[in-house]
């Protein structure tokens, strides 16, 4: 009997082991250490000071030198709500005192690259510089922290954010990849402009050299606070402004990856050339091109004309065709499509410009244009930026869409400085392309482009809508996500449909082909995110 029992146990054990081996999760690939990651960057570094800059051209090569207070989870970057501690301990704290107080415990094992120990006072000095910089010092995103009343460090390893009111926008704002942690001593000794030209962080890599226009080089930080990381010996961020060169660099193995994204055709070419030596990661992208009508210029000062503009655009079918040639794909409203606050398809289809029946939509557009007395024999001016992907592609598509309801536009394509001058100052257009490209998905702030122009700072359609401003304020002071969602739907309906203020075309779509030996990096819904490189390794 005992022998039978033993046999049964043995048989069960073997069966179980086989089942686990066959169906169970494979253990993670064995990480290989060492190697230099080479990647190409398509934009130039202005300065090294992330608190001041806004371009990925600075984030990609410089971010690995710095840490953040909290960051988007590098193993789950697709989630818009998954944040983890970087220099803080444990998990991201839950607010106390009615949602108005966040207390962070700071790690005790972090050193700046110059050998100084980092503590809560450094983090406080950093956020003071970002939120309330001294007079004459610029901070690009200080308006994102209008809900913060104070930042204090009661002891060396505790940091407290006190808010004026509870806000769901504060945690994503704190996780901005631009919030590099600086040393308080550096700020005190060298001043607030020192970081424009100098680097002293606590990131996974230490600065080696920067040859302007050529490359930035970093090497492994042996004292990095995440044990065993980074896996790489170093990295080299090679400047390559032309997309064709970036593509060829991956094909010819001069670089392994490009973190911003390629258009579909370039990706197809690479797949064809490299086969299984290439891996492609794809994601929705927290950027969209917007149609911005000039509310101060007839006939677009009439809400009926503006509604006709959006009703003429067939987003559902356009997505199918444009996604083959351009970096756009997802149909969405004002909120990033994957976020819990975003409209469902059914909700979207009730908004002008998203109706499922395009014939009905265009018939309504024609009726509105007639009712508004729009002169269809005239040619109106459409302001666009001289960048192929996706501006010129989407711009040309829009002209065709509007022609289908009788509206004729002349597309004026301008180089970036002239385009911004027109968009922001001259306003010498009837309709312009504008764009909304953000970092961490934070709808409560990302939609600020739809606020009145005296509130927003980035709304160029020249309108004031106090109702939208009021709803925005309500949403930002509302801690309950369900209630936030209800207000968001009203906001969206008013902005895109009832008042037809500005419109979203299609959300961008990020395609990152890279050499298959690059492991550990996961695509995020923004080209600004997941660029610490501490979890990247090379399988070769």
């Amino acid at each position, binding site marked *: 009997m005992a022998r039978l029992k033993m046999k049964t146990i043995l048989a069960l054990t073997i069966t179980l082991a086989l089942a686990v081996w066959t169906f169970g999760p494979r253990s993670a690939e064995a990480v290989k250490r060492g190697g230099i990651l080479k990647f190409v960057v398509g934009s130039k570094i202005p*300065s090294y000071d992330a608190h001041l800059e806004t371009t990925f051209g600075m984030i990609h090569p410089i971010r690995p030198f710095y840490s953040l207070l909290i960051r988007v989870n590098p193993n789950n970057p697709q989630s818009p709500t998954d944040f983890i501690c970087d220099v803080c301990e444990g998990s991201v704290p839950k607010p106390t005192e009615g949602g108005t107080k966040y207390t962070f415990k700071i790690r005790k094992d972090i050193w700046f690259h110059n050998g100084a120990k980092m503590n809560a006072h450094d983090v406080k000095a950093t956020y003071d510089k970002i939120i309330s910089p001294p007079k004459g010092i610029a901070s*690009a995103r200080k308006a994102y922290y209008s809900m913060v009343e104070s930042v204090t460090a009661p002891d060396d390893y505790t940091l407290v954010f006190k808010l004026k009111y509870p806000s769901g926008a504060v945690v994503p704002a704190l996780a901005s990849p631009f919030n590099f942690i600086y040393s308080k001593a550096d700020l005190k000794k060298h001043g607030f402009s020192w970081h*424009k030209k100098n680097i002293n962080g606590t990131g996974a890599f230490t600065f080696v050299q920067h040859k302007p*226009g050529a490359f930035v080089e970093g090497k492994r930080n042996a004292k990095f606070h995440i044990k065993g990381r980074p896996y790489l010996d170093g990295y080299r961020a090679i400047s390559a402004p032309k997309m064709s060169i970036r593509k060829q660099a991956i094909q010819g193995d001069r670089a392994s990856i490009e973190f911003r994204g390629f258009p579909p055709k370039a990706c197809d070419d690479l797949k064809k050339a490299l086969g299984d030596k290439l891996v492609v990661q794809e994601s929705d992208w927290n950027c969209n091109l917007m149609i911005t009508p000039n509310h101060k210029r007839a006939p677009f000062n009439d809400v009926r004309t503006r509604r006709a503009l959006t009703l003429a655009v067939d987003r559902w079918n356009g997505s199918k065709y444009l996604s083959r040639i351009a970096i756009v794909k997802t149909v969405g409203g004002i909120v990033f499509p994957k976020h819990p606050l975003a409209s469902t398809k059914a909700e979207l289809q009730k908004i002008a410009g998203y109706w499922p029946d395009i014939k009905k939509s265009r018939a309504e557009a024609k009726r509105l244009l007639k009712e508004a007395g729009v002169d269809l024999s005239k040619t109106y001016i459409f302001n666009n930026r001289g960048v192929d992907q996706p501006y010129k592609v989407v711009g040309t598509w829009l002209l065709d869409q509007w022609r289908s309801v009788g509206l004729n536009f002349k597309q004026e394509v301008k180089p970036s*400085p002239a385009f911004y001058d027109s968009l922001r100052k001259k306003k010498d257009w009837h309709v312009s392309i504008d764009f909304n490209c953000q970092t961490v998905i934070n709808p409560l702030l990302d939609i600020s482009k739809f606020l009145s122009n005296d509130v927003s700072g980035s709304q160029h359609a020249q309108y004031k809508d106090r109702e939208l401003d009021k709803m925005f304020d309500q949403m930002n002071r509302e801690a309950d996500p369900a209630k936030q969602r209800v207000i968001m739907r009203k906001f969206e309906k008013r902005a895109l449909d009832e008042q037809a203020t500005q419109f979203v075309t299609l959300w961008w779509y990020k395609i990152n082909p890279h050499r298959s030996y690059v492991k550990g990096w996961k695509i995020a819904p923004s080209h600004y995110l997941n660029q610490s490189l501490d979890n990247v390794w090379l399988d070769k």
Partner: protein
Amino acid sequence: MIPTLIGAAVLIFFLLRLIPGDVCELRMAGTGMYADPEAIKICQHDLGLDKAVYAQFIDFVWGFMQFDLGVSMWTGKSISEEVGLRFELSLQVAIMATLTATFIAIPLGTISAIKQDTWVDYIVRSFSIAGIAMPSFWLGIMIILGLLIITNKITGTPWMPPIEYTPFWVDPWANLSQLIWPAVATGYRYSAVATRMTRSTLLEVLREDYVRTARAKGLYEKLIINRHALKNSLLPVTTVIGIEFAFLMGGLVVTEQVFNLNGLGKLLVESVLNADYTMVQALVMLVAVVFILTNFFIDILYAWLDPRIHYS
């Protein structure tokens, strides 16, 4: 020289100010995120863009007179440092392209003239017309694609020229494997112009009385060509080569982009796109100086090539 530089300075300064947009708007608002108006104002103040245009012009001229080119409005780094980094590469490409062009143009032009209206002449003329018709950036793209495809077929691994610059004295092989291709792409177009010039001037010289006299004296044809005809025909060719060399120093705008060369041409394009006035001004002045110096050098060379020319 001085009036030319003053003219160039005035033109470039005021023409740049006519272009709409400024570097701060682009830097702070160029990504579509919220742009803090105060941050834009601070940036404009820091860069002196809030000063009157005439005050900015005086600053520029005063700095230039003291050889102080200022700082780049985009990177905040010293312009001398930014230019210095790229000058070496641009100079090397210009020299290599000039050598390539000279080694192609003078022998081919000479053969073409000697064998006028024969099949050899037709081939050389077709070759040079193709060089003029073909933009060097297009040839550059074809070279890179060709290398990727051919090496992939032969070795199974696609190869392309390096995209990072290595100085010649650090690693000559890496340096040449990167720069030989742009030198060939630009040198070919450049040689096409010089080949045609060599051919036509040599044909002209070969019909001169002194050449006929040399032939009547019974001199060897080789000696007549080398000693009497070719040397005299090279004066206009030298001018063409010199001007092309000066052009290559700042004008390889597209070819540098195609091969990802961190040279002066690429810097100029990026600076124009970024509305980096100070950098564009400095580069245009640098190119003006290179043109002036090249012309001066050509004038000296004239005297060596043609002993009848004397400068008092």
